[in-house]
Every structure is written in structure tokens, then in C-alpha cells.
């Protein structure tokens, strides 16, 4: 019986089984290079997707929502509101007698709610100590990668109206 078997030390069932797993797992340099090139194509497609999105993206239509009355909040006071949807929480700050700014309350790092620190005159995220400027929402310190989206406000008589979200 041993005369008809191959000289390999593998058991008979492995010898006769037509799929060789070690050969199947073996990746040649050409295959690996092809894989890397396909990954490069994926990165390129990703860049093209961003390009297409930036070219053909429609400007979203924001509703006009009354968010506060003039003199409703004191100087350096804050008011929380939601805009443009009830799920989007925002914070409005009266920085001077006739100056109001509003930002999304969602930190651009991990979406914790930012609050206004009147003592330091900045917006602070308590989760990872990310600080934002009250003037323009830019990042002053910490891990947030982007500025806070700003809510454009318009004054209509004695009312303050939110008209758009900038930097989303």
C-alpha cells in the first residue's frame, strides 16, 4: 500500500485533499502590490467624493426663528435655544450692550455641550478642556478640530432672529 502513496509525511486525507491551505494563504509580492494600488484608488475615490460633495452640495435652507428679545439677557449673560431643529442646541451670549453672538452648543470634538465662562470670556467644553473664542467660535485650546458652528442672528425691532448656521 505504501508503494502507491507519495513520499510526503502528511496524512493520507491531507495528501489527497485538493485545497492546500498554506498555498492559499501565501500572498505574492505582486498580489500585495495590487492590493496597495487598489487601496490607493480607494483614497483617490474618497478625495473625488469630497470634491463632488463640495461642488454639488446645495446650500441648506434655514428657517427664521425668533430666539430672544433684546434686553432679555444681561451683558455677559447667556440664553439657550434650539436651532434649526429642536435637536440642535445652541447658546447665545450678549457680549456687549448691542452685541449678540450665538453658536451651536455641540463641541466639535466629541459633541459634549459647551458652556460660557464669563470669568474667562470663552466657551468651554468640560469633557476634554476644549476652549472656543466667543468672538468667532475658533478653537483656543484643546482637542476640538474645528470651530463651533456660528448661528447668524438678525435684529428685527426688539427681536433677535436666527437666520442661518455658518460653518457646518
Amino acid at each position, binding site marked *: 500500500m505504501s508503494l502507491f502513496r507519495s513520499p510526503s509525511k502528511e496524512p493520507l486525507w491531507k495528501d489527497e485533499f485538493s485545497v492546500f491551505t498554506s498555498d492559499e494563504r501565501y500572498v505574492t509580492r505582486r498580489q500585495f502590490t495590487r492590493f496597495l494600488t487598489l487601496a490607493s484608488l480607494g*483614497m483617490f475615490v474618497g478625495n473625488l467624493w469630497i470634491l463632488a460633495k463640495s461642488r454639488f452640495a446645495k446650500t441648506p435652507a434655514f428657517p427664521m426663528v425668533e430666539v430672544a428679545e433684546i434686553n432679555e439677557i444681561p451683558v455677559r449673560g447667556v440664553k439657550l435655544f434650539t436651532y434649526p431643529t429642536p435637536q440642535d442646541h445652541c447658546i447665545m451670549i450678549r457680549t456687549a450692550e448691542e452685541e449678540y453672538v450665538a453658536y451651536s452648543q455641540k463641541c466639535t470634538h466629541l459633541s459634549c455641550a459647551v458652556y460660557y465662562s464669563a470669568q474667562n470670556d470663552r466657551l468651554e467644553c468640560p469633557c476634554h478642556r476644549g476652549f472656543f473664542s466667543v468672538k468667532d467660535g475658533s478653537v483656543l485650546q484643546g482637542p476640538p*478640530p474645528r470651530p463651533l458652528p456660528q448661528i447668524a442672528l438678525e435684529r428685527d425691532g426688539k427681536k433677535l432672529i436666527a437666520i442661518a448656521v455658518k460653518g*457646518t
Partner: protein
Amino acid sequence: MANLEPSKQRRGLVAIDGAMALIVILLIVQIWLLSATLETYLAGHTGAVLPAAIFSGLIFSGCLALDFFVTRVDQESRRS
């Protein structure tokens, strides 16, 4: 065993390894480029999107050229 290998094959292997290393470096640059572009796009700056796409396309062309090079060198070294 390595001494018995024909020198042409050995040179081909070195060329393939070099090309592979270059592709890996290009790919790392391209991954960084994509993440940076996405970051700037999400921040509302779209000025860098087009140059980044062009540069990414150039990197992909480079990778493709290196892939062809590897295939050609491999075939040549196998033939010899």
C-alpha cells in the same frame, strides 16, 4: 542558496521590494491627505479640496505606474 540565484533575479527582487516600499510611503501620504481634506471640508473650507483631489490622483497614478513596474520586473525575472 542565495548565491546560486541568478543576479538578474536578485536585482529584480530588490527592485520589486523598493517599489513596494515606495507604494507604501505614497499610500501613507494619500491617507493623510484624505483625512486632512475631510477635516478642512468639514470645517467649511473648500479651497483645498480641488488641489487635494488632483494631488491624490497623481499619487494614485504613481502607485499604478509602480504596480506596472513590479508586474513587468516580475515577469522578466521569471522568464530569465
